[in-house]
């Protein structure tokens, strides 16, 4: 269930607003004249301030107030949103986040510095926030009970703007005993009376301990437009007071009568009054109906009753029925969508349940396969289909567009560009590509590393770019697209490209390659993923410490993905991440090795071939397979897993690939495809690299899931060793 505590709702809302603010500010940097962006930024600030104050986040409210003031001036066209102002506003946004997340850790000096910058940029205006109205000066001292005479006439249109005079009188009576006298001298003759207008004047005597301000408070909403005279009077004598009381009773009756009369007049009048006249308390659906509508003359023109009837009868248009005009349509992500919030753990729970269902279903499938009951087979097929559909729907629910993640990097690029004095443009492609939310969350850090690398190592500074004859503004392109059951994400820059010679020299220095060995670009570039590998001569604040690329690779492999690099000297580099769509359930190929069963992710499988006895014998000691002219190294899983049973006569080879590398896995039997619900291995087995997890089969036994990236790497290494030896 979504949180119901308003404070929790505020926290969630504030996070979203801050993110929206950041996007808007960054957009504004590109289009400083866009009034709609300015409004959006202002609104975000306004809401953070207003709601913040509401829910006790006073520091946030106070801080945001100054930023809001600045943007109010921007909105009014008195201040231009320069790059500098936007940079300060972004810093302010960060400070607001700290104030919301962890007020205790907020550094006040930072906040003051930001506000100082802000004040400098917008001039003196921000330093003097508009103060609240001064308290009433003329209040008589509170000396116990006092008598007041209050004479007033409401604005003529008070009732049509929702003010109910009777409620005002009730309000006065809550201050103390009052005698109310309605003066009807202003009521015009019947034929010219407008039932929507207020004609009465009132004369009230009130005994109260409350000050004048309390009386004025009663008329708060109408006080600016009405005639009101409040005067202290001497205490009436007891006799008079008694008479006053009687009079009060009388006048109340009189008032009621006056009210009644007016109501009657209304009914008798040439036009029937709408709820306006009847007062809000009686404004029910029937009275609000169009037949009674259409009081003549004053106020806004009454719409055609027929039109009103149509609109009233029409079903309510869906929320968002009025499309935001112009560019707002493009920023649909900022509009409240027609969605439901669900805590992430609930989705995980749902996925888990679906996983259990899939396991139970595969058990049922096995039982049905062994049975001759046609009805059972039929229902089993139905359940299989439904559970697969349920699985897909559930996975769909967990999918988020990657644009959300890409959006976060705009700020990173902005800051990096400023810190490095480089001009950088961020281009994003395929933002609508959807990925499992867990994958998206875990992609954040690796992508930050890669973007920093691209900016720090890849892109030249403006002088360097000018010398190379490139446009001064460097470009970083983030793109995402679906490929089969996975997603390709690439981070490309148009910088100088990887320095082959330097990487090679460094690799030879550290003994990763023998000097003079023939190495392909792809292999050479892979070494930058080695732990501790760095060619950077000096360490910058951002990168070059030799940590990073290996962390990136580990993170991506942890997501059962892999990383590729392509680079052209002088033209830039592109790093491609290949990722599975989801982490929870995969299509697997179930194979048998000895007595054990194993799952190979189907997305990695290229083909299955047979390994005949003679071929097997011939390849002993060489372990290469000729696949249409390519030598592919293979691994005998029987040997790796120490299978004790005799090998099957016809061994099968499953050719799997990771990136551009391929390797064959020799197994006893290919059983078939299998819906694999992935269970992670326990901490104890964390260091077992060749298995990425386990799954439960239909008969309740466990099958291990092979980690293809590691197996391929292992196979290639073994292959290279063998090649070198021969």
């Amino acid at each position, binding site marked *: 269930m979504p949180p119901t505590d308003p*404070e929790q709702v505020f926290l969630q*809302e504030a996070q979203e607003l801050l993110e929206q603010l950041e996007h808007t500010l960054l957009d504004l940097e590109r289009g400083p004249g866009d009034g709609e962006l300015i409004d959006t930024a202002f609104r975000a600030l306004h809401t953070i301030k207003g*709601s913040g104050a509401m829910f006790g986040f006073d520091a946030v409210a106070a801080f945001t107030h100054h930023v809001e003031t600045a943007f109010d001036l921007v909105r009014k066209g008195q201040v231009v949103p320069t790059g500098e102002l936007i940079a300060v506003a972004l810093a302010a946004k960060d400070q607001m986040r700290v104030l919301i997340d962890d007020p205790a850790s907020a550094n006040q000096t930072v906040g003051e510095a930001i506000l100082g910058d802000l004040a400098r940029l917008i001039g003196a205006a921000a330093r003097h926030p508009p103060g609240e109205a001064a308290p009433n000066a003329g209040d008589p001292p509170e000396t116990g009970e006092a008598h007041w005479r209050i004479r007033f006439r409401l604005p003529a249109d008070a*009732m049509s703007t*929702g*003010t109910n005079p009777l409620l005002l009188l009730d309000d006065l009576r809550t201050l103390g005993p009052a005698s109310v006298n309605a003066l009807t001298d202003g009521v015009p003759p019947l034929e010219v009376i407008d039932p929507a207008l207020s004609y009465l004047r009132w004369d009230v005597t009130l005994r109260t301990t409350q000050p004048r301000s309390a009386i004025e408070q009663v008329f708060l909403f109408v006080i*600016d437009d009405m005639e009101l005279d409040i005067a202290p009077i001497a205490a009436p004598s007891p006799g008079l007071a008694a008479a006053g009381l009687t009079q009060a009773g009388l006048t109340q009756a009189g008032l009621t009568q006056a009210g009644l009369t007016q109501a009657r007049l209304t009914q008798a009048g040439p036009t029937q009054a709408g709820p*306006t006249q009847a007062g809000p308390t009686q404004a029910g659906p029937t009275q609000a109906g169009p037949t009674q509508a259409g009081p003549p003359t004053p106020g806004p023109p009454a*719409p055609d009753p027929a039109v009103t009837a149509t609109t009233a009868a029409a079903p309510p248009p869906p929320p968002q029925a009025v499309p935001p005009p112009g560019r707002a349509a493009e920023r649909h992500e900022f509009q409240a969508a027609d969605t439901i919030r669900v805590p992430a753990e609930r989705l995980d729970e749902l996925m888990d349940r679906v996983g259990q269902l899939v396991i139970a279903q595969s058990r049922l499938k096995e039982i049905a396969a062994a049975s001759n009951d046609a009805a059972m087979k039929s229902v089993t097929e139905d359940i299989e289909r439904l559970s697969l559909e349920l699985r897909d729907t559930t996975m769909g629910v967990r999918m988020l567009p990657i644009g959300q993640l890409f959006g976060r990097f705009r700020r990173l690029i902005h800051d990096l560009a400023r810190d490095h004095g480089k001009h950088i443009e961020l281009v994003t492609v395929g933002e609508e590509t959807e990925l499992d939310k867990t994958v998206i969350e875990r992609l954040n850090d690796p992508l930050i590393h890669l973007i920093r690398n691209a900016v720090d190592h890849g892109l030249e500074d403006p002088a360097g770019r000018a010398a190379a004859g490139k446009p001064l503004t460097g470009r970083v392109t983030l793109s995402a697209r679906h490929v089969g059951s996975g997603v390709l994400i690439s981070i490309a820059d148009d910088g100088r490209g990887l320095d082959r010679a330097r990487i090679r020299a460094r690799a030879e220095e550290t003994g990763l390659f023998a000097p003079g060995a023939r190495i392909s670009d792809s292999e050479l570039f892979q070494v930058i993923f080695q732990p501790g590998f760095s060619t950077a001569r000096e360490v910058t604040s951002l990168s070059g410490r030799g940590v990073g690329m290996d962390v990136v690779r580990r993170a991506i492999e942890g997501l059962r993905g892999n990383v590729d690099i392509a680079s052209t000297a002088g033209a830039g580099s592109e790093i491609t991440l290949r990722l599975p769509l989801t982490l929870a359930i995969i299509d697997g190929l179930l194979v048998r090795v000895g007595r054990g069963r194993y799952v190979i992710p189907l997305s990695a499988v290229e083909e299955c071939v047979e390994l005949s006895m003679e071929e097997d014998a011939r390849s002993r000691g060489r372990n290469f397979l000729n696949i249409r002219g390519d030598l592919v190294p293979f691994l005998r899983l029987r040997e790796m897993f120490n299978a004790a049973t005799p090998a099957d006569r016809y061994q099968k080879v499953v050719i799997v690939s990771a990136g551009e590398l391929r390797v064959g896995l020799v197994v006893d039997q290919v059983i078939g495809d299998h819906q694999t619900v992935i269970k992670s291995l326990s901490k104890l087995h964390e260091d077992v690299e060749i298995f990425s997890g386990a799954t439960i089969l239909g008969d309740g036994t466990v099958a291990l899931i092979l980690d293809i990236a590691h197996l391929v790497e292992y196979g290639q290494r073994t292959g290279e060793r063998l090649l070198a030896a021969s």
Partner: protein
Amino acid sequence: MKKRILAVDDSASIRQMVKLTLSGAGYDIVEAGDGAEGLSKARATPLDMVVTDLNMPVMNGLGLIRELRKLPAYRGVPILFLTTESDAEMKRQAKAAGATGWITKPFQQDQLVAIVRKVLG
């Protein structure tokens, strides 16, 4: 019958608070996230009162108040607006648009109830 109040605010937290507070005080609450949504809900459901924020996307509070006052059914219905502006100009504009009164943010829950009772009875 419970009186029905429409709460219009683009801030979900404020809406939530208004809703909790006023439903606790015995009112029925209908919610809307902006002026346009508020207007369509007001057309679809008879309301006894409207409480609206002023600064909202799509259709702001002023627009909503003006549109509501054009509907015969809403000519006398109290409309309160929420405001943080100490700026009298905003209040003046909202009053001119036909609002009944206002609630200054931040407000306490009992203040909200008191003002609603004051205007709605």
